[in-house]
């Protein structure tokens, strides 16, 4: 029940992580720690040791800035597709959406579809231009013809805010999940995750981060597939029979097969979907991956591969959710005090793991738990690298030193930045323990969709954009998205304890994204400065490069 109300008030945004905490923490405080699962621990150690070996190997190849930030552009389209899909398939996606389908049926499916849709759009509008124009960070593209100091500062602020909000969410989720699965203390778990992340990123850079992500994505897809197949084997591999069983045991009955209350409000639905779809196009750690491939062709291939895997994974998750209803929901051993229909042991986010145990025993539970842990590690590493690149490449090398720096000192700064980001992430993870942080996901996606994305898109597509316009638009998007989230029910009511929220929706994108476009457009139009005209004149060269790749950063590490 807890879950249902949580989702109703603040859950929409929560795809990536929120359901995880929304429910996991109260359940854990109730002391439902799982017994130590030796299989899980053994498998996790195998994962950590093999990824550390990869990091050692990668460290010897990460000597230049290009290999550190982008693996020297030497990642193939297929590998990058798997890695970028891995960035998006977090542990919370697996656990959170499964639990959403488990509780709400079809609404959970719609939720998954909404968070899938950004992928094809990323391909149609951005992938090849990103690769042709960028080098290390998405700020490279915005500052291509606009004022580098202002644009990089703005992009770095937007990028770092997204990275930090996302990181806090991952760290808190990691602490709670690991405590639950492995019986490790919360603080210890957060420190372990933070330290491993620092090791992967500082020593192995993008090469190690990419391979950690590829391995984890493969394991996650494999684990999900096995559980789904075992689930379907209980129902003659017939989705109809599975659905019929789910309907017959779910307390909402046949209602779970159709749209429920989650998407009944058109304004709220539209705002959620805009944030979900266009937020993806402004996530710095996702955008950064397009610089790891050798050319635009490989960039396109990687989105095709990533879309395929993410789409497949989301469809799989819906089978898991219904399987949870039909199998876990009818087995008293998974409920607190053995009461069917009561509280699930460990909270609703444990459905996927309970299902693994129900269909494949302790072995499969151990495997899936280890994969969930690995997933958190891989996702935080990608985030830390994107944050470090914003600090060292944008803020240090280009804003502060105006490009007058050596590669060696830029890399030193990025490693120091990684250590600082790791330390801050550990600190914030401990600080936010047990807090209701669902709104942080709304913030991360809101800023990505309303500040990073509009300016990036306009800089690539609209000749008329000037520095003044971009700055006005980016700041307007940032301020409005942060402001609206603060005034939303998730913060104003749930966190600050006010009786009613000033802004009635949890997701700001419907309002903050147009706000960014509007400010960027109007201010650019009004900009008659010589600088503005010079920036417009430079569009032609940028356009040619974005289309043909002429002069684009080449792969240097074959």
């Amino acid at each position, binding site marked *: 029940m807890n879950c249902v109300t949580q989702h109703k008030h603040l859950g929409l945004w929560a795809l990536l992580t929120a359901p995880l905490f929304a429910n996991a923490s109260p359940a854990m405080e109730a002391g439902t720690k799982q017994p130590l699962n030796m299989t899980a621990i053994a498998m996790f150690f195998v994962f950590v040791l093999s990824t550390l070996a990869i990091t050692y190997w990668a460290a010897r190849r990460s000597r230049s800035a290009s290999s550190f930030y982008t693996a020297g552009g030497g990642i193939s389209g297929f590998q990058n597709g798997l890695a970028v899909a891995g960035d998006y398939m977090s542990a919370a996606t697996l656990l959170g959406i499964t639990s959403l389908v488990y509780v709400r049926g*079809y609404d959970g*499916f*719609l939720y998954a*579809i*909404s968070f*899938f*849709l950004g*992928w*094809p*759009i990323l*391909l*149609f*509008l951005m992938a*090849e231009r990103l690769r042709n124009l960028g080098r290390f960070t998405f700020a490279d593209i915005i500052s291509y013809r606009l004022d580098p100091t202002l644009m990089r500062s703005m992009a770095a602020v937007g990028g770092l805010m997204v990275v930090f909000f996302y990181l806090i969410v991952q760290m808190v989720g990691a602490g709670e999940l690991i405590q639950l699965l492995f019986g490790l203390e919360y603080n210890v778990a957060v420190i372990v995750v933070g330290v491993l992340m620092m090791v992967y990123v500082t020593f192995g850079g993008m090469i190690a981060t990419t391979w950690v992500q590829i391995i984890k994505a493969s394991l996650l897809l494999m684990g999900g597939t096995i559980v789904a197949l075992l689930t379907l084997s209980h129902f003659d591999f017939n*989705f*109809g029979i599975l*659905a*019929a069983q789910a*309907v017959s045991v779910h307390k909402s009955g*046949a209602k779970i*097969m*159709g*749209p429920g209350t989650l*998407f*009944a*409000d*058109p304004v709220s*639905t*539209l705002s959620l*979907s805009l944030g979900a779809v266009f937020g993806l196009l402004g996530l710095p750690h996702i955008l950064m991956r397009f610089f790891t491939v050798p050319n635009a*062709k490989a960039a*396109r*291939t990687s*989105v*095709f591969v990533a*879309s*395929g895997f993410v*789409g497949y994974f*989301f*469809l799989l998750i819906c089978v898991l959710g219904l399987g949870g209803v039909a199998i876990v929901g009818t087995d008293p051993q998974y409920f607190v005090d053995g009461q069917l229909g009561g509280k699930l042991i460990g909270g609703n986010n444990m459905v996927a793991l309970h299902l693994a145990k129900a269909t494949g025993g302790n072995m499969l539970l151990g495997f899936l738990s280890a994969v969930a842990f690995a997933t958190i590690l891989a996702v935080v590493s990608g985030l830390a690298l994107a944050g470090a690149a914003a600090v060292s490449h944008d803020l240090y090398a280009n804003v502060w030193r105006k490009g007058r720096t050596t590669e060696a000192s830029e890399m030193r700064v990025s490693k120091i930045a990684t250590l600082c980001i790791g330390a801050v992430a550990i600190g914030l993870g401990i600080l936010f323990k047990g807090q209701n942080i669902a709104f942080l996901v709304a913030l991360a996606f809101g800023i990505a969709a309303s500040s990073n994305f509009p300016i990036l898109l306009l800089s690539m597509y609209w000749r008329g954009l000037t520095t003044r316009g971009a700055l006005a638009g980016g700041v307007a998007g940032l301020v409005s998205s942060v402001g609206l989230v603060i005034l939303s029910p998730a913060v104003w009511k749930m966190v600050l304890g006010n009786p009613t929220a000033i802004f009635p929706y949890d997701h700001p994108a419907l309002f903050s994204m147009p706000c960014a476009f509007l400010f960027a457009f109007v201010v650019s139009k009004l900009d008659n400065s010589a600088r503005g005209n010079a920036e417009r004149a430079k569009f*032609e*060269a940028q356009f*040619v*490069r974005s*289309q*043909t*790749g*002429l*002069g684009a950063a080449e792969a240097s590490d074959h």
Partner: protein
Amino acid sequence: MSSTEDVDRIVANPKFQQLVRTRSRISWGMFFTVTTFYYLLMGTVAFNPEALRALISPDSVVTIGWPLGAAVIVVSWLLTGLYIRKANNDLEDLNDAVLKDLKK
């Protein structure tokens, strides 16, 4: 970095103009197809949810909402496949031709 002269020559090349036109037709066309399909589904959810509660057959509990939702994912993925087929073959050839003309 390419020189201004190179840029002017490319922009004037009819092959480049054809490349830009074709690519933008395909990518915006697919963008609108995918978003239309998705927002039709979400619009139905918001304004006429009953329509999605119809069963796929009288003896099943599965509603037509499920295959339609799965179709949004599968069709948009197939479109990405179609896009890269076009872009990595025809358009890439055209692109190479444009860059080759520059070296003449």
